[in-house]
């Protein structure tokens, strides 16, 4: 509503009296609108008169500098008056209360209307009161003269019939008052303005040669004095006014047309050094928003009007005090539009030529215009009676022009001819016009604030790139989701599908796992599919804590909830039961917060009564392993370059950007077919274009380069590039070095593994010398590696890059003749460590008997020892068991050590000696062993280890049952033995033993074991004597 009125007035003023009829013709419309608002206000005001009153009284007290306290019963007269006002006209005025007789009786409702404009003014006035009565008087006279002048001017301009009487009234009012105060208050706002402007001049009258600043200070002090001078009536009046103001404040509307204006994207820091204060209700921005905008551009937001304030952004219902103070401090008062333009101006943008401009032309300065506006707005808000509306309109129109002229008048020393004034006004208008044209208004676009990625996000399933067709993931997901409740109603018994089955619709699974690289639309797909099928989504992503506890408590609770969405949006099926839980970025479940999250998620999936959609980037990740088994696997692949290109071209068309097609290809491929990143790049480029058209091409090229560099290559790609002669042509030395750094721990291994399958360019005869050079360089690289790792000398890494990657690449530059293999070193190394562990075990076990070191056990003993054990079994079968067992006992070996020995003495192409032994014999040996051989201190741990390792040997399978039972007792024996012996042995030892014993599941009765142990001990002793 407000803007329309404003525009109306602006238009009217633009006509500037030259087309009064037009203005009048428009009035009725406005009036109607006003009527509605006044009615509304009518209803609001009576609603809480008492409450507001009390508040007002408080407020007024403070504002009157404590003078109000002298009043014994300030509330009661007020009440009366309010009641009166309510009954008569909702828009009551303090002035009516002050002198209830003359205006009311003389002019009826009209006075009320006039005063309705005033409320803010009296305060201003109070502040600006002059200390000197004489000055005041003289001022008054001047004012009166001026007002007369003005009214005459107005009259000449506007030929409306109703106006003259009104003016007269005003005059009369001014003439009649007994107090200057009252007079001033009676004056129309325009006159108030005049007064303000004139004060310096009046000063000049009284004391010539005063500076401009002096009057200000004088005024300030006068304000203080004034408050004490006030009569009771005046105080009363003031209280009323503040009460009304407060009422207004309370009832004031929120932003009328929120977001109707485009907020320009200014340069950062464009408002640096400027200070702002927002007052009143702005047209399109909330106050907070305005403040945040100011802060965003590094402007400063102040809370009080002061000298340092640069701009006062005034909206509707702005605080009159603030406005007055702003005037006092010469602060520029601007509207919201001015403010937005200011941003544009400061950030070097063109201020657009919009329809608003016309409205602003007539005002001499933004400040003036703002004042007018504010006044207008004030008029509109207080409740008024319909029949007075017309007059108000006229008043306003009148008000509009005067302020412009008054300053001029001042300059012209009061007696200048009107024509001159007009001329000057026109001149100024033109100036303003030219200024305005420099800053045209931007088009009203709110979407500009959004990132393109969000702006052009697919809104329906069909828009998702690369997900069309029946076999696409979208189709699969839709199918799965739509059938979910049918499939999982508890009646069907579903079979776990064969993981290799092709056309699986995932009906078995209660959850789906969308996996794929970032930026290709996984989340978009999930949300859109859910939307399309009418599911409500509950989303958890990496930004939420997803610990075990949270998942258990909160999510499961959420899933049992019912959505009220339907209630609020009037859907027929008010409460929906269809939920989907979207767990985004499940591979991001890590750290302390999300501990156990995956396990809990799996538990959730098992129990869930709603479909769950999980999303991750790398489904082969260690953390995902367990989850994958419970999810319908949907893998997203990167869309084709052409698919992305199509979409991006359409975006470019919408954004009016012309982009080279090949350039676009480059960008897309540089981002590795990542839609999101491509759009971001384009967005960046377009921004660059706006700033600097010429550097566009260069910029994009560099952009591509950096984007490409950021890509991480896998070791396979790296090693291919290291040796490929074609790539070398385009690569600089640094590029070659960089290859190494893609994964500096794996790169040298890959190079070493694969350099032999490269066929280097050049004569065949030189191949072997090249190989030798390469091997030499790799050997040096290993030396550097050792230095790096052992001394943490990471500064040497580039050196290693040269030796381990660049030089081999140079020597062997050519092409691959075979498949690139994963470095064998890792596997081989782990095998050799495993074997050395086995050898150490055997060494430990046999140490009592043998003398050799670990190495000699491994290289010398192992085969002979094994032969000694196995030979009798092979030769004699069952009868040989006894002999083998004897050897085992002699060397304190465990049954498992035989396997270790076999592994240690196995060579490629050599048969295991145990193969020749009959299965029955093996079983017999195991049985005999378990029966006869007593526990060693290490047998408990060994048993555990073996179990953990899940011995796959057939031997163990045969003897497994017996072993289990026997082990329990032996472990118990060990334990009790410990207890008996602990005074003999070292502390550390007991600890170790107990730990090992307790870790096994020794559950057999301890009593029997203890008895046994007493018998075992001497035996053990005897054995060691042997």
């Amino acid at each position, binding site marked *: 509503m407000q803007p329309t009125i404003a525009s109306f007035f602006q238009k009217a003023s633009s006509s500037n009296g030259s087309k009064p009829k037009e203005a009048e013709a428009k009035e009725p419309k406005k009036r109607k609108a006003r009527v509605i608002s006044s009615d509304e206000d009518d209803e609001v005001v009576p609603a809480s008169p008492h409450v507001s009153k009390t508040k007002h009284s408080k407020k007024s007290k403070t504002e009157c500098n404590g003078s109000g306290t002298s009043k014994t019963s300030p509330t009661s007269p007020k009440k009366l008056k309010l009641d009166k006002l309510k009954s008569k006209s909702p828009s009551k005025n303090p002035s009516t209360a002050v002198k209830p007789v003359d205006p009311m009786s003389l002019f009826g409702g009209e006075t009320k209307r006039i005063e309705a404009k005033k409320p803010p003014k009296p305060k201003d006035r109070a502040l600006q009161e002059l200390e000197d009565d004489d000055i005041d008087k003289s001022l008054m006279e001047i004012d009166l003269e001026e007002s007369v002048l003005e009214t005459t001017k107005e009259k000449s301009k506007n030929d409306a019939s109703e106006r003259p009487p009104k003016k007269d009234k005003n005059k009369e009012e001014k003439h009649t008052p007994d107090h200057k105060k009252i007079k001033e208050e009676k004056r129309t706002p325009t006159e108030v303005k005049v007064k303000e402007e004139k004060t310096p001049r009046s000063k000049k009258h009284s004391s010539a040669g005063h500076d401009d600043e002096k009057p200000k200070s004088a005024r300030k002090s006068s304000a203080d004095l004034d408050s004490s001078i006030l009569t009771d009536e005046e105080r009363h009046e003031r209280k009323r006014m503040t009460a009304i103001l407060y009422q207004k404040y309370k009832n004031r509307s929120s932003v009328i047309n929120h977001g109707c204006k485009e907020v320009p994207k200014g340069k950062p820091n464009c408002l640096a050094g400027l200070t702002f204060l927002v007052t009143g209700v702005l047209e399109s921005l909330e106050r907070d928003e305005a403040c945040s905008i100011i802060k965003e551009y590094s402007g400063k937001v102040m809370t009080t009007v002061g000298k340092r304030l640069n701009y006062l952004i005034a909206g509707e219902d702005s605080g009159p005090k603030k406005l007055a103070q702003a005037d006092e401090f010469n602060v520029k008062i601007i509207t919201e539009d001015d403010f937005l333009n200011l941003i544009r101006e400061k950030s070097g943008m063109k201020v657009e030529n919009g329809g608003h401009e016309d409205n602003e032309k007539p005002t001499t300065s933004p400040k003036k215009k703002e004042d007018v506006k504010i006044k207008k707005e004030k008029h509109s808000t207080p409740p008024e009676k319909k029949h007075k509306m017309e007059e108000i309109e006229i008043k306003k129109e009148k008000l509009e022009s005067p302020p412009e002229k008054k300053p001029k008048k001042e300059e012209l020393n009061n007696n200048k001819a009107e024509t001159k004034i007009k001329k000057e006004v026109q001149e100024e208008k033109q100036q303003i016009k030219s200024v305005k044209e420099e800053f045209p208004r931007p088009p009203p676009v709110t979407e500009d604030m959004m990132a393109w990625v969000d702006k052009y996000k697919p809104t329906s399933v069909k828009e998702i790139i690369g997900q069309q067709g029946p076999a696409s993931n979208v189709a699969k997901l839709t199918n799965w989701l739509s059938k979910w409740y049918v499939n999982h109603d508890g009646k069907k018994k579903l079979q776990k599908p064969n993981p290799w089955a092709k056309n699986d619709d995932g009906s078995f699974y209660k959850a789906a796992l969308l996996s794929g690289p970032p930026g290709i639309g996984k989340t978009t797909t999930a949300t859109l599919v859910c939307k399309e099928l009418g599911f409500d989504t509950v989303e958890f992503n990496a930004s939420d804590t997803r610990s075990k506890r949270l998942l258990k408590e909160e999510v499961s609770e959420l899933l049992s909830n019912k959505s009220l969405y339907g209630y609020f949006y009037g859907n027929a099926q008010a409460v929906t039961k269809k939920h989907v839980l979207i767990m985004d970025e499940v591979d991001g479940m890590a750290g302390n917060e999300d501990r156990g999250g995956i396990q809990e998620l799996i538990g959730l999936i098992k129990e869930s009564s709603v479909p769950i959609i999980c999303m991750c980037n790398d489904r082969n990740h260690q953390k995902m392993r367990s989850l994958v088994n419970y999810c319908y696997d949907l893998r997203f692949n990167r869309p084709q370059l052409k698919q992305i290109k199509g979409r991006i071209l359409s975006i470019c068309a919408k954004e009016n950007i012309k982009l080279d097609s090949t350039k676009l290809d480059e960008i897309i491929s540089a981002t590795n077919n990542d839609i999101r990143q491509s759009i971001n790049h384009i967005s960046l480029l377009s921004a660059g274009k706006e700033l600097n058209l010429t550097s566009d091409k260069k910029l994009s090229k560099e952009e591509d380069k950096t984007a490409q560099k950021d890509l991480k290559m896998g070791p396979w790609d790296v090693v291919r590039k290291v040796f490929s002669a074609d790539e070398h042509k385009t690569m600089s030395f640094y590029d070659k070095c960089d290859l190494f750094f893609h994964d500096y721990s794996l790169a040298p291994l890959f190079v*070493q593994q694969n350099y*032999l399958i490269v066929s280097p360019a050049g004569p065949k*005869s030189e*191949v*072997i*010398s090249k*190989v*030798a050079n390469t*091997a*030499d360089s790799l*050997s*040096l690289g*290993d*030396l550097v*590696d*050792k230095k790096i*790792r052992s001394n943490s000398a990471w500064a040497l890494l580039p050196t290693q890059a040269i030796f381990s990657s660049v030089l081999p690449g140079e020597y062997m530059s050519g092409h691959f003749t075979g498949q690139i293999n994963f470095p064998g*070193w890792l596997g*081989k190394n782990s095998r*050799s460590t495993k*074997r050395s562990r086995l*050898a*150490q075990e055997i060494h*430990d076990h046999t*140490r*009592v*008997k043998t*003398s*050799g*070191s*670990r*190495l*000699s056990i*491994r*290289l*010398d*003993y192992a*085969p*002979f*020892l094994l*032969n*000694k054990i196995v*030979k009798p079994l092979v030769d004699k079968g069952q009868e040989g068991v006894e002999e083998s067992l*004897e*050897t085992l006992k*002699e060397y304190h070996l465990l049954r498992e050590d035989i396997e270790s020995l076999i592994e240690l*003495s196995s*060579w*490629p192409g050599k048969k295991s000696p145990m193969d020749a032994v009959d299965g029955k014999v093996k079983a017999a040996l195991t049985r005999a062993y378990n029966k006869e051989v007593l526990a060693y*201190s290490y047998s408990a*741990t060994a048993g555990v280890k073996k179990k953990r390792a899940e011995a796959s040997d057939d031997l163990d399978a045969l003897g497994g049952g017996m072993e289990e039972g026997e082990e329990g007792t032996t472990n118990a024996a060990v334990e009790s033995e410990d207890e008996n012996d602990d005074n003999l042995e070292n502390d*550390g*030892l007991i*600890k*170790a033993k107990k*730990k*090992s014993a307790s870790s096994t599941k020794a559950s057999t009765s301890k009593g029997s074991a203890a008895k046994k142990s007493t018998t075992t001990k001497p035996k053990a*002793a005897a054995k*060691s*004597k042997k």
Partner: protein
Amino acid sequence: MALWVDKHRPRELLKLDYHKDQAENLKNLCQQGDFPHLMFYGPSGAGKKTRIMCLLRELYGAGVERLRNETMTFTTPSNRKIEIMTVGSNYHLEVNPSDAGIYDRVVVIDLIKQVAQTHQIDPNGQRDFKVIVLSEVDELTKDAQHALRRTMEKYVATCRIILSVNSTSRVIPAIRSRCLGIRVAAPTPNEMISVLQAISKRENISLPLELATRIIDKSERNLRRAILMLEACKVQQYPFTAQQDIVELDWQVFLRETANQILTEQSPAKLEKVRDRLYELLAQGVPPDVIFQGLVKELVKNCDMSIKAKTLEYATLYEHRMQNGAKHIFHLEAFVAQFMNIYKKFIADAMMMDDF
């Protein structure tokens, strides 16, 4: 039924078969009542451990032979638990700190200090000190060795440390100077023959001298290996014949074959195969220096003199690098590649010469 090598091990100093003078000295040392820390050094299979055990028996009597296994747990500063198996009697403790790998320092600090600090409880025992036997001290890291030196000085009153070392070159001089070094040289072939024959006599078998010589040849003067081979031969075929097959160790065969393959073909593809074989040898726990040694020996056998020098040069170069490096295979491979290179060049040159 123990293997012969363990069954016929001498248990007393005076019953040792060779280095009898040394045995005498050791006996005198014990009877003196006190002795400094000892370091037995010598090649594998020469009888270091045997001598140490004899010495202990001399010191403490038969009680030393009542051995028991104990597992000890240590916590490293990085909160990792290490288990170490020790063998000990009431009088001594035998540890191999290098079992703990890179954490051997912790073992040295914790265990040895702990044992060394405690006095013997029973003052009636023969000695007022205990003995700690540390085997494979040359395998210890430098850190552990440094940790050891102070312990050796400080607790000399309560314990003696006997070190068993293969090569003193890898023991830091500070430790070497704190010990009385006792060199246990590998037995001469004649001594070995007498040992083998003594064993045969005790086992009631007859051993032809020629076979004994061949066994000793194969065993590289490693008495342990020789005895093991003898037993293997007996198992394989008895009565002995002079020319019967001697069971060879698999890794020796494998290494020889590898060397032969290098000589047959010099190409990247071959090098790759050789690499696999080298991996296999390493995985079997054959020390890389032994591999170097074996390869060089085999390669040099049928080479021209000019190549021999170069081969040795490269072998030393890469062996040295290997000691300083981290991944043995890199250096072994580099050596093989270099050898292939020079060998191929040599062959090509020879062909050219022939053509002329």
